[in-house]
């Protein structure tokens, strides 16, 4: 079996009396899409934040590319190749779509302390950025200022910026949210192809997408993983049905 790209052991995180993560152990293997589903407030975003380094776990470890990164900052993990999208879009609203994408490229090449030649005139940055935008179907909006994008378009840009990083693993927090039927379908296709480049830890409430994409699914309830398995196993699990899916399976 291949070495997991990303791995957690016994992650615990409490907010006051609430255990948002209660001993989470899971991994992300090369080439796979691992979906994490669970009720609202189960601790999915909290898990992602611990993986990306935005919040520090109370207990447990995070390993990325075989290295213990528990103590590393968000920036350091991102530079190692861990890209994330946000549940609530975090973009430079006054900049253009292209500038946002270039920012990602800039981060990937970790070369921000250049003071003279214009960023948009640097072929290597611009190339990467446009490629990502094209992939997400945003090339036509390259010169649009982000604040003028609709909600769904912003969600697409979120993913595009993560693409520019050409990372070793993706963390995606509800990338489908806000996309219309067509948009979801498109993104499903994109993610499907993307897993060959880097594995994806996907949080999503859109079950059509999850069932279409996931190689494995973990179900998180009250901070604990109650089940991990293939799409079929999860669909059939009565526990999961009760806690989360309802009739949606």
């Amino acid at each position, binding site marked *: 079996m291949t070495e997991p790209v990303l791995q957690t052991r016994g992650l615990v995180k409490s907010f006051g009396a609430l255990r948002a993560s209660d001993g989470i152990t899971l991994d992300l293997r090369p080439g796979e899409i691992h979906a994490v589903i669970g009720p609202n407030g189960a601790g999915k975003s909290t898990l992602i934040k611990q993986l990306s380094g935005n919040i520090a776990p109370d207990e447990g470890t995070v390993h990325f590319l075989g290295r213990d990164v528990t103590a590393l900052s968000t920036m350091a993990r991102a530079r190692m190749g861990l890209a994330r999208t946000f549940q609530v879009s975090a973009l430079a609203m*006054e900049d253009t779509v292209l500038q946002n994408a270039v920012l990602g490229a800039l981060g990937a090449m970790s070369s921000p302390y250049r003071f003279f030649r214009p960023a948009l005139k640097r072929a290597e940055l611009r190339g990467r950025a446009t490629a990502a935008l094209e992939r997400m179907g945003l090339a036509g909006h390259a010169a649009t200022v982000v604040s003028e994008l609709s909600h769904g378009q912003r969600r697409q840009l979120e993913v595009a910026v993560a693409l520019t990083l050409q990372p070793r693993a993706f963390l995606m927090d509800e990338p489908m949210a806000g996309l219309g039927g067509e948009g979801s379908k498109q993104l499903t296709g994109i993610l499907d192809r993307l897993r060959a480049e880097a594995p994806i830890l996907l949080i999503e409430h859109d079950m059509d997408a999850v069932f279409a994409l996931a190689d494995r699914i973990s179900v998180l309830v009250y901070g604990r993983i109650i089940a991990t398995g293939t799409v079929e196993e999860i669909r059939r699990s009565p526990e999961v049905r009760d806690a989360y899916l309802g009739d949606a399976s």
Partner: protein
Amino acid sequence: MSREGLLNAAVLLALGLVPLAAHVMGEPFTITLATRAAILALAAVGLNIALGIGGLVSLGHATFFGIGGYAMGILASHVQDYEPLFEWPFLFEGSTSMPLIWLLAVLASALAALLIGLLALRTSGVYFIMITLAFGQMFYFFSISWSRYGGEDGLSIYVRNGFPGLNTLDPIQFFGLCYAVLCLVLLGARLLARSPFGLALGAARQSPDRVQAVGLDPKRLQLVGFVVSGAITGLAGALFADLNRFVSPTMFSWQTSGEIMVFIILGGVGRLFGPVVGAGVFVMLEHWLGDMSEFWHIWLGLLLLAVVLFARGGLVGLLAGRGRAHD
């Protein structure tokens, strides 16, 4: 060229030509006014890097302005009084050479900006405004009671410092010098705004989470921006002191910080030429309104109000259109 580009060229040209015309017509005071405008613009260009691009609303930039001023005052006063600044490890008598003074002013204010920035950047938003103000006030009160260098009375330098090949006492030559410095810095600021650093700094203002997620450190970007910004304002301080041949704690006062900020907002935040237009207009208003009535501050206040309320994006925004250039 875009409308804003044309406007910028016109402003720069006017700022350069008016003093020349004044020189020909024998109106040295107009040259002094233009010099003042150019120097204040330079200070504001400095702040505009932190504020316009980085969103760091510093109400303490007078700190750097004052440090630049005192760098000049201290260096020159030691020469003037024939008391060496220090004798160990080598004899240093102070200096009356502008290039050296500038260098030290820039270094000193950059150092101060680094230290202040390290502490102040732990906070953000309104707290940042206030903590920078606090540092400004510390310097202000310190300089008032620092009697070695004149305390509240300040330091008078009788002769303007020298620049190789120029007679700095001649108003038009001194103006030319300041103008050249301003142009150079503006060029630098323009490059910086479009550079990778400028892009990243701007993003750090708008969405620090995003910047972190792509692997960049927003605080460090902001710190670098703050230092660059402080250093430029420090340089302006040294020039301002030379213009007046005088430094005093007023350079450190919060009103000075406020005025530098006013130039920017008046001209247009984040616009390359915002500070230049703002400082120019402010100096002119001060000059004209002052002659009109004893209560001219009322008119100044009303004018400023009108600009904030009705000219979003400042005067540059009003003249060149709201949207910022995105290229």
